[in-house]
């Protein structure tokens, strides 16, 4: 009887470094334009808040494992399959996969550490977007890869941000109208934590006529605010005042 095998997972550590180290340098007078363009550029980006469901799935599984797994005495190897019931469209989150759809994940465990890379699927995962229109409903089908940021000892809660890459995405977005919008993407990546979701922007794709190119990180916070991280630091903006400040 051999030790159980672990699953192969796409390595997102390089992508995470790009999020950590954006290359663009922005002038203060274009930051607001970048934020507006970024927040409007993708219907999926508008639903970012709902993608917290993936964060909930991963942290719920890891924390549950932390509570159950006392691995002090032995070095565990293998996999933990996770089925997380998406909350669905109701006022109260459902725990029924048939109602809310599910996120399926495979966590790899080596030497009693949950490895940073995890892979899985979102299958008919239904959720409402709290931060947007109250009537907005999203159903997500996608392959997904998650990077936990670091290998984490069983028994330790995961509190870092997660790097997530979705592939073969089909997102059905409905607001009040009975017929919804179906979005298909080959690939989409973002970083999600308890309070914020980040997406990497290639400045050259925004068509703002910027003199310099590079990358910046667009940040959507759960309180509804947006900010932008570039090479020198993070721009915090007050849209009401039309002003931004660079925090280095």
């Amino acid at each position: 009887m051999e030790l159980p095998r672990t699953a192969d997972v796409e390595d997102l550590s390089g992508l995470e470094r790009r999020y950590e180290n954006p290359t663009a340098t922005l002038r203060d007078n274009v930051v607001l334009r970048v934020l507006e363009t970024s927040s409007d550029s993708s219907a999926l980006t508008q639903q970012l808040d709902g993608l917290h469901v993936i964060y909930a799935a991963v942290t719920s599984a890891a924390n549950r494992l932390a509570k159950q797994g006392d691995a002090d005495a032995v070095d565990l190897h293998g996999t933990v399959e996770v089925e997380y019931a998406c909350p669905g469209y109701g006022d109260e989150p459902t725990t029924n996969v048939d109602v809310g759809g599910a996120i399926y994940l495979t966590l790899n465990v080596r030497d009693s550490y949950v490895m940073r890379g995890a892979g899985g699927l979102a299958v008919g995962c239904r959720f409402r977007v709290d931060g947007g229109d109250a009537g907005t409903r999203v159903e997500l089908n996608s392959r997904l890869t998650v990077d936990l940021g670091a290998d984490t000892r069983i028994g330790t809660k995961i509190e870092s941000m997660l790097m997530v890459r979705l592939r073969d995405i089909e997102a059905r977005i409905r607001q009040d109208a009975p017929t919804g919008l179906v979005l298909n993407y080959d690939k989409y990546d973002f970083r999600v934590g308890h309070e914020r979701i980040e997406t990497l922007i290639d400045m050259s794709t925004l068509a703002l006529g910027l003199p310099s190119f590079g990358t910046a990180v667009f940040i959507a916070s759960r309180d509804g605010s947006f900010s932008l991280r570039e090479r020198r630091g993070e721009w915090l903006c007050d849209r009401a005042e039309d002003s931004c400040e660079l925090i280095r």
Partner: protein
Amino acid sequence: VRVDSLIANAGILLLALGLSTSARAEKPRQDQRIEDTAYTLPGGGFSAGIMTLEAGIFDEITIGTYLPAWFAFSVIDVPILSGFIKLRAPWEGPLALSVRVGAAYVDASRVAGDVSSGRAVRADVLAVPFELAVSYAVSESVTQSLELSYVAMKVGASERNAATGGGSATTSNVSVSSLLEVRLTPTLAVTLAARVLAFQSAAVISAHLERGSTRLKANLGFRPYEQSFLWSVVPGVALNWAHVHLEFGIGYGAYWLPMIQSPLPGSSPVPEGNLYVRF
């Protein structure tokens, strides 16, 4: 799996060999040592000791149980049920072959509840040892025995509602042991016992847990021993009177649990002893 099938095939071969030579059966000696050898009690014989209770059904078949296991209730509130059957190939001559199959079962719910702060409400442990032994009487006074022991163990546990949480852990190992007995007088013999853990499988845990929105299904394994090489050597003395037999020795290495033939990790002085009466 290969080890399992190897041992199963060896057992079948031994039984077939035994059946084919049953016409040449030899009466076992009354005072032959049973534990760690290929010998059995004579038909109608009975042995009662601090370790085992055994009865010879026929010359070639001995059944028994490990006595201390039944008294485990004083510690864990339930007895450990144990039993074994030993079959010896019924041929004559200096060479003896036997197989012994046993089982030990304990309902460990109480213990599991204590160690898991009341989480686990049902738990049990099952161990199935399978032993293949050969003994060769080199002379009237010298006997060499070799034994191959395979043990499969399974531990199961679940919550009150098994659908919301439960699982099992399985493991197996193979030990090889040797016992040399030299009779100095009809009453006194010296012995040298040695054991080696030849193979230890990984322990594999299959478990499921359901809490709210989250279901986990774990398939995890671990190596039960940090030490890659476990062994023991125990020199000893056996005193054999007409009905009373006393064996004792002290050596060094890992301690093999008698009922499940599995070593405890670590090395230390190893005491061994047995006292039994035989009729």
